[in-house]
């Protein structure tokens, strides 16, 4: 053996020592100028503004266009239909759950997802493929501003995003105007499901001067009895609908106990504008007010 072996051993030891040092070096991220924390608590950092963005929620698509980052979009869901330019962006499926392969095939550098169980899993899969993801909450009016701001940081459109966010924040902090009308949002009839205080629609109604008779229920939606709706006697029944056809249950005898159903006082709110929180919230409030004033 002797000296030759000794040197080989030494070399081997040095090599072994070097490996962890290299791995350490690989772990340390390069200095990032664009960093946010998403709503799943994860740090998301980019070295340069995102150039190829995929949005997996119609609201995020709207937001991206509203902050001037619409030209960066390389993928959207089939539901993303606003603004009209969005339709030209290729679709990667309906997003429920996200089609990871279709998303990856577009080679994005950022994927924006709504924070939900299946989406968290999809985000994990995308991260494993080396694709950066950001998970954002978007259920309430208050969440529009923070979402816009973070998207602004990640796409390098900070200024437009901040001004949009300020507008939405000021809307969110507006005190409720005195309500002239009362309404109930009915989402389903059997069993009856209504919208409560924890939801975007309830907020829109308050901003438009209509009181949700189920504002005392804290959760976004709840099952109630027809009797309860009848007892609270709302002036209007609001439904998310693109047409002005009264819902099927309106003809059923048991629903006639509700005055608004008997008198056919329905508010039909198109899903595209009212169904999801988005940058057009001010327009939604105005439209809401208009429909209230115009109703028979």
């Amino acid at each position, binding site marked *: 053996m002797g000296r030759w072996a000794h040197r080989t051993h030494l070399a081997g030891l040095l090599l072994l020592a070097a490996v962890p040092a290299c791995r350490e070096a690989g772990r340390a991220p390069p200095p990032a100028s664009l960093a946010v924390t998403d709503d799943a608590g994860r740090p998301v950092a980019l070295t340069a503004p995102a150039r190829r963005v995929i949005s997996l929620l119609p609201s995020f698509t709207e937001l991206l266009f509203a902050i001037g980052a619409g030209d960066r979009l390389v993928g959207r869901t089939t539901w993303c239909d606003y603004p009209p330019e969005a339709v030209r962006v290729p679709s990667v499926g*309906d997003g429920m759950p996200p089609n990871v392969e279709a998303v990856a095939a577009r080679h994005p550098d950022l994927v924006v997802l709504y924070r939900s169980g299946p989406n968290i899993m999809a985000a994990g899969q995308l991260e494993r493929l080396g694709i950066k993801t950001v998970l954002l909450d978007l259920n309430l009016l208050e969440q529009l501003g923070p979402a816009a701001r973070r998207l602004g940081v990640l796409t390098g459109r900070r200024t437009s995003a901040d001004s949009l966010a300020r507008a939405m924040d000021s809307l969110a902090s507006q005190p409720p105007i005195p309500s002239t009308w009362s309404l109930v949002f009915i989402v389903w009839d*059997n069993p009856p499901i209504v919208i409560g205080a924890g939801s975007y629609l309830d907020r829109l109604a308050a901003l438009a001067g209509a009181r949700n008779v189920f504002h005392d229920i804290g959760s976004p939606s709840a099952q109630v*009895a027809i009797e309860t709706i009848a*007892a609270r006697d709302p002036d209007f029944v609001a439904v998310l609908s693109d047409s002005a056809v009264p819902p099927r249950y309106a003809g059923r005898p048991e629903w*006639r106990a509700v005055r608004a159903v008997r008198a056919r006082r329905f508010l039909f709110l198109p899903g595209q504008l009212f169904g999801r929180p988005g940058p057009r919230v001010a327009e939604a409030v105005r439209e809401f007010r208009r429909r209230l004033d115009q109703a028979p």
Partner: protein
Amino acid sequence: MKYVLLAVAAVVTLAAAVLLGPADVPLRDVLGSPIVWQLRLPRAVLAFLVGGALGVSGVALQALVRNPLADPFLLGLSGGAGLGAVVAIAFDLPGPWALPLAAFVGAVSAMALVYRLGLMGGAELDPRILLLGGVAVGAFAAAITTAIVSLAQATELRNAFLWLWGGFSGASWTTVLVILVYAPLPLGVLAAAARPLDLLALGEEPAQYLGADVRRLKRLVYLAASLLTAAAVAVAGVIGFVGLIVPHLCRLVWGRLHRALFPTAFLAGGILLAAADTLARTVVAPRELPVGIVTALLGVPVFAFLLRRWTVS
């Protein structure tokens, strides 16, 4: 004496169902209130009828499969009804009766399939195969249902599941009328089968030696009980536990002879479900609980109490 108590309990329960509710209807206005006449009364009556149907159905099925743990929904009916309901919503079938009709057709189809399976061992219905077949058909239907829901992905379908969990929010006098016209036939068949079912408890062969036409009996009882359950599901979704626990409660108090069990199970089931529905409407007002949860919460302590009394005596 016990019968009198049962009748009184029925009246009290119905009265409570009519007088209590999330809307505040003062006593003097009750008789004229549309909320009472159009909403509470049909709902209370429907809950009573459905509970009665489930109770009777449970007694009959437990006698048929000679297993005190049988529940009407063990025979695949709930899976079939769920599939029917989901199909109605996914394909947006028209008409206010689309959902209950589709659920009914689904339940009856499941029943027919299980029946066919039950005959596989020969010309005679084998109760053991009925149970296994019911579980298999139910699971199969549930799988197809889940497939449709995952592929169609409309939010309405999630609400279909809410319907399936059971409830009387859609009750109206029309629904009550449908049940009143439909139920007497299967109920009548089961009433006529009361004595042969007593004999069946001894075993199929001994029952035949004591004069029961066991072959016809099994078919008729299975069909009648399934039709009752299918109607109950179509109208109120899947409300488990009533068909399982009411026969036991009644047996504890009235013994095992079916001539007494059938009427008392009808009343007891009706009382249980009407009371459960009243609680479901009032306990977390303005919200509502699914009725199936309330029946379970009500049924178990009552059963435990009666069981203790029985074992002690």
